[in-house]
């Protein structure tokens, strides 16, 4: 029998690392639909899951894939799907349902160029806002952005842990660069991997209220077949889970769905600083583009320019406090992203006109080269 956790070193692709991260996190169900550049994740899961006693199902479309994942999670199994922007567009209906019924699940979006069919084989970071606002209504979600093959593995595990902890769908927002490139992946021994599982009810079935939150705003989750005989619905519901169409029910539910993420943001947000302590120019970049940015910062530092890199690892929730701290001495904040300006809006909300915030967008399917990026930074600052 194959092992679920393939401890050791291997030279492998980001997409494969995401699949292995999911398995290491305890994922035993995958439903998906083929789409470039995320198909390798489905292929890996189709090969691996049956060999470790898990289940893979290829559904008829992305709507079905995402819905099957919600069903599987309610059946008590850690579940995932993987897709790209066009697939997420279809999944957004169900992502709303998953938010409303507080379903732990992970979605990997290996972003490609859009709108519509766009550039299937090229790199992009243009689904940043889609991840946050894709479904209708007020809600919060979790999205992590990897910058390396190793992070594809690590952040997929963290996405599962956060998703289970807060009963909310969690995205791994990769770009095609990270999804398709190969690097060394180190998979630690199984007992060194931290795993978080959803809270289970501690009361007998007759006392169980499926949507009664505890102090952390997260309700314990029973699953089908355990004898709790509970009901869940996409309609506005009360603590019993039954539809209630009045003002109080909506007021008790929607703010809690948002606040369980907002008020726990300190436990979810993460970011990385490079040379930010004395930085007069703060560069903000994430995912594949952060690799360009890192090199640009090193080159510029060698030329005596006081520049630093702030890399959000969680984009949703956005690491506001960490950004404020990193930008403490900055006279300019520069956001480089592989889209026509998305996360820059969040950065502006944090910086609030205190110093200029510049955008360096790129929508052509490849990241900036370090020289190109440096040239763009100089142009904006002078």
């Amino acid at each position: 029998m194959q092992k679920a956790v393939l401890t050791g070193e291997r030279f492998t692709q980001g997409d494969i690392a995401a699949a292995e991260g999911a398995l290491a996190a305890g994922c035993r169900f995958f439903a998906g639909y083929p789409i470039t550049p995320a198909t390798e994740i489905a292929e890996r899961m189709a090969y691996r899951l049956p060999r470790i006693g898990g289940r893979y199902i290829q559904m008829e479309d992305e709507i079905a894939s995402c819905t099957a994942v919600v069903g599987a999670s309610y059946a008590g199994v850690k579940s995932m799907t993987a897709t790209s922007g066009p697939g997420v567009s279809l999944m957004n209906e169900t992502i709303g349902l998953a938010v409303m019924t507080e379903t732990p699940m992970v979605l990997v979006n290996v972003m490609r160029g859009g709108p519509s069919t766009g550039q299937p084989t090229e790199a992009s970071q243009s689904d940043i806002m889609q991840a946050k606002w894709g479904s209708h209504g007020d809600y919060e979600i979790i999205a992590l952005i990897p910058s390396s093959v190793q992070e594809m593995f690590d952040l997929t595990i963290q996405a599962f842990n956060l998703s289970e902890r807060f009963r909310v769908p969690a995205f791994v927002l990769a770009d095609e660069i990270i999804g398709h490139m190969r690097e060394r992946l180190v998979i630690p021994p199984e007992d060194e991997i931290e795993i978080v599982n959803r809270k289970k009810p501690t009361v007998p079935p007759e006392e169980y209220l499926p949507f009664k939150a505890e102090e952390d705003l997260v309700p314990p989750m029973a699953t089908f077949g355990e004898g709790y005989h509970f009901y869940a619905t996409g309609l506005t519901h009360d603590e019993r889970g039954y539809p209630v169409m009045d003002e109080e029910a909506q007021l008790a539910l929607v703010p809690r769905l948002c606040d369980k993420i907002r008020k726990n943001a300190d436990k979810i947000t993460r970011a990385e600083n490079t040379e930010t302590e004395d930085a007069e120019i703060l560069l903000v970049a994430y995912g594949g583009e952060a690799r360009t940015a890192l090199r640009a910062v090193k080159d510029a530092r060698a030329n005596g320019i006081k520049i630093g890199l702030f890399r959000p690892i969680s984009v949703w929730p956005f690491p506001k406090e960490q950004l404020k701290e990193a930008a403490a001495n900055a006279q300019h904040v520069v956001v480089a992203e592989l889209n026509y300006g998305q996360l820059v809006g969040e950065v502006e909300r944090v910086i609030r006109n205190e110093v200029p915030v510049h955008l360096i967008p790129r929508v052509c399917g490849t990241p900036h080269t370090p020289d190109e990026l440096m040239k763009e930074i100089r142009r904006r600052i002078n």
Partner: protein
Amino acid sequence: MDRLVVISGIGCTGRASGYFAADSYHTTHGRAIAFASGVKVANPDLKPVVISGDGDLFAIGGNHFIHAARRNVDMLVLCVNNFNYGMTGGQMGPTTPDSAITVTSPDGNIEHPFNLVSVAAASGAVFVARWTALHARRLTKSIEKALQKKGFKFIEVISPCPTLYDRYNRYGSGLDVMKKYREISVIRNFTDPMKAEIDYRTRIVCGEFVDTEKPEFTDLLAQQSDRLQKR
């Protein structure tokens, strides 16, 4: 009862899942079958039963229906067919008969309706039956039978919509419609589903049309997985 999971979509029948003292889930419009597939594949000990309407299962959810039937995923799908979208005020849908009046076909429906039992049989369902709301006893028997069987099972239940569809088309009260069912329905077990007529005015062929055996999807998955794990 602990193994039963009742799943519904959106519509007049969508609320059905809330009436069971069992694990139950009310999905978005059209997605009950996809949800049930996830439940069944993730935990094959569970017994999903999908209860929903004709618009939910065969318009917005039509793709999920044919593919779950094709895979032969173990679940029972009960379709309450009232020939229109009732919850939203009586619009035409995939089963609305030829020339019928609805609020979105005010001059008569010109679309060709699905014959649901034929769609189910052609898609690969292992059990297919049709009853009207009048046939409560026979319907119950078919449900019992279907629940004992493994695979994708489909039962259509012809149901009145006295407040909308039946009113627009001047079929009278709910009781009048039930009387009409008694008058025009005939029981013809094992009729070719393609030929199982359904004409609201003249003839409704009821009965159990398909009862066959085929390897079930989650059994096949388990067999394959067991074999691969021994390697």
